[in-house]
């Protein structure tokens, strides 16, 4: 009866051929749960990191471009301020624009190193005084500047910022003209200066964008005004074919998306580019950095997350394997014990001090075995008693 019980399918699970199965199931389930959780959280992390870092990058680069634009604008403003001061000389108030004005022009060239030539024109556009760092001018030659657009705009009381032009096909220059007035609105002449834009190089090359990034300025027509690699400027490179430059000069209504584009630079490298405009000069300032460098931190964090993921997975594997073995080991001992009991070794007692349900189970088994042993012993005794009873009663009823 006991043997039949022990051979029943419920107990067969503990027997050798099927022993590995539980470990495997347990192992698979825990790995699936733990790894699944880890991978899901890791991927989520990477996803958010990506978006976050893209946003931070966009913000940072936009700011850099804006700062660069402000610095370049300030450079031009400084020139303009020096010129404005020159239009307010005392001699002008007294004598109007005359030969004496050369003194102011000298001071202007001294104060603004970027100006290489300056000329003072009277209200009809005739040169009254002129000075240059390179050339000498005769005081008696009165050239006529009245046709120049710089003069025409400045005479109306408005400051003139001319297009970029290249001297000797190499150095970038621009013309700035300001009205000279006795008082606001009473224009008596024009002060015109040629500004060497090579000096903007100093402004631009001081701007750092990350490690390999840089800032540069270009005019609407695509002329490069300032670039840390001054060779590009002196070669008169035109950047109008670059996507980011075209995008920057689009009207605001046609501009799509954010102010951060991935584009190719002059060297054909992929860069992240953002820009800021200087509306007064119709220039745009770009801040660019190589894509690889910009996403370096992102890649770093992806690597970190995935290595953490791998370590987690390894630990999960190890842990579930360990736990599975911890459960299955005692179970096997239990199974072997039960098998031996099944074979009739009722004197066997299991010694499992696992401190958990398996220990309780082992104790119950021990109790059961004890009970079985007792029952067996009782049964045998009863049989012996019965046999004796029958034997002793037999002589009394010999015929039955």
């Amino acid at each position, binding site marked *: 009866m006991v043997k039949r019980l022990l051979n029943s399918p419920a107990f067969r699970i503990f027997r050798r051929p099927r022993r590995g199965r539980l470990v495997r199931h347990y192992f698979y389930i825990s790995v699936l749960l733990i790894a699944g959780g880890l991978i899901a959280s890791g991927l989520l992390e990477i996803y958010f990191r990506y978006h976050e870092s893209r946003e931070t990058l966009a913000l940072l680069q936009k700011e850099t471009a804006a700062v660069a634009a402000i610095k370049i604008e300030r450079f031009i403003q400084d020139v303009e301020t020096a010129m404005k001061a020159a239009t307010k000389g005392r001699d002008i108030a007294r004598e109007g624009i005359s030969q004496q004005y050369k003194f102011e022009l*000298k001071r202007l060239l001294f104060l603004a190193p970027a100006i290489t030539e300056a000329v003072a024109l009277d209200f009809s556009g005739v040169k009254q005084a002129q000075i240059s*760092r390179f050339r000498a001018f005769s005081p008696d030659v009165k050239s006529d500047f009245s046709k120049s657009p710089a003069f025409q705009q400045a005479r109306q009381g408005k400051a003139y910022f001319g297009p970029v032009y290249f001297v*000797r096909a190499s150095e970038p220059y621009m013309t700035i003209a300001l009205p000279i007035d006795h008082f606001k609105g009473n224009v008596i002449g024009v002060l015109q200066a040629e500004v060497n834009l090579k000096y903007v190089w100093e402004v631009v090359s001081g701007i750092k964008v990350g490690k390999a990034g840089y800032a540069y300025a270009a005019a609407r027509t695509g002329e490069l005004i300032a670039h840390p690699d*001054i*060779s590009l400027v002196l070669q008169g490179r035109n950047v109008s074919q670059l996507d980011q430059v075209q995008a920057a000069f689009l009207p605001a209504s046609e501009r799509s998306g954010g102010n951060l584009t991935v584009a190719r630079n002059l060297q054909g490298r992929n860069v992240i580019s953002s820009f800021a405009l200087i509306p007064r000069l119709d220039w745009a300032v770009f801040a660019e950095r190589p894509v690889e460098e910009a996403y370096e931190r992102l890649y770093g964090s992806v690597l970190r997350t995935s290595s953490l993921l791998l370590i987690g997975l390894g630990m999960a594997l190890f842990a579930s394997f360990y736990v599975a073995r911890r459960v299955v080991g005692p179970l096997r001992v239990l199974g072997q014990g039960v098998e031996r009991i099944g074979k009739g070794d009722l004197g066997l007692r299991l010694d499992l001090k696992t401190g958990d349900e398996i220990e309780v189970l082992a104790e119950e088994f021990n109790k059961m075995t004890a009970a079985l042993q007792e029952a067996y012993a009782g049964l045998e005794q009863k049989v012996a008693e019965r046999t004796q009873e029958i034997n002793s009663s037999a002589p009394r009823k010999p015929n039955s």
Partner: protein
Amino acid sequence: MRAKRDQEMRKARQEKASGKRIMTLLMAAILWLPFHSAQAQVPKKVPRIGFVGQSKHSSLTGQAILAFRQKLRELGWVEGENVIIEWRFAEGIEERVPEFIADLIRLKVDVMVLTGGRPVRAAKKATNTIPIVMTEASDPVGSGLIASLARPGGNITGMTSVRHELDGKRLEILKETVSKLFHVAILWQSGRSSLKVEFERTELTARELGVKLQFLGVQSAADFGNAFQAIPRGQTTGLIAVHTQLINSHREQIVEMAAKRHIPAIYHDRRYTDSGGFMSYGPSHPSIYAQSANYVDKILKGVKPADLPVEQPTRFELVINLKTAHKMGLTIPPDVLMWADEVIR
């Protein structure tokens, strides 16, 4: 049963221990890797710069060459460590320059730094592969040294000098300083045909300013005395010494002669004013040399000279020696003084 479990535990412990060992090995490998790769690098060839100066060897410690060396250091080139500089000084003898150039070509220098137009022309004839950085060649496009300022096109790049072009400007400054000025002597090294165009321009300016020019060509140091003799004495006379090799190498002599004869002179370089000359107006010598170090740096880093635009100096300094002015009994007008970058008193 116990024995079996003990055995299992021991096995587990062993496994753990071997895991630790693997980790240690891995860490060691990570730490060792950079050292290994550093050792694996092949020692690079130390680049060589050939420098030919026209002046004396002592100018090695002069302002200009110090500026050149300083800039190179700033750019990461330490002489004797990761760069070798072959210094050659002609000591005022121009004929030695082609020899030096041939010598530097034999030494297979990576880049040559040459002062002035003539040495560059000599070098252009001798090599069209070794990059050449010129420091003060006037009108390199006109004389056919380079194709254009923006794209030199060949093996030559560097700085142009605007020194000769500034002679008109110098005349103007001198006239503004000494308003009585009527007669200006132009002291130059005769036989320099490249100066013809500039002289025409200077002549034009002189006419506009109402000044008469007297051209005094010299061929050797012995001619200086005669040349100065030819300058008429008087308060209306001035002198411009044109930037040429012969004149540069006799700086002190010229300054002294001008001082002796009380001739207000304007020079192209502040070294004249520093040694007692009256005035100087021109690009700063040290900044030109510092700039040429930039070219050397770019070329050593692999940029082709053909792609390096030739630059012109943008800053010019006016230096006035008040001591000399005082000795000659001249007062400098305030508007000229104001515009001076430096006044030696």
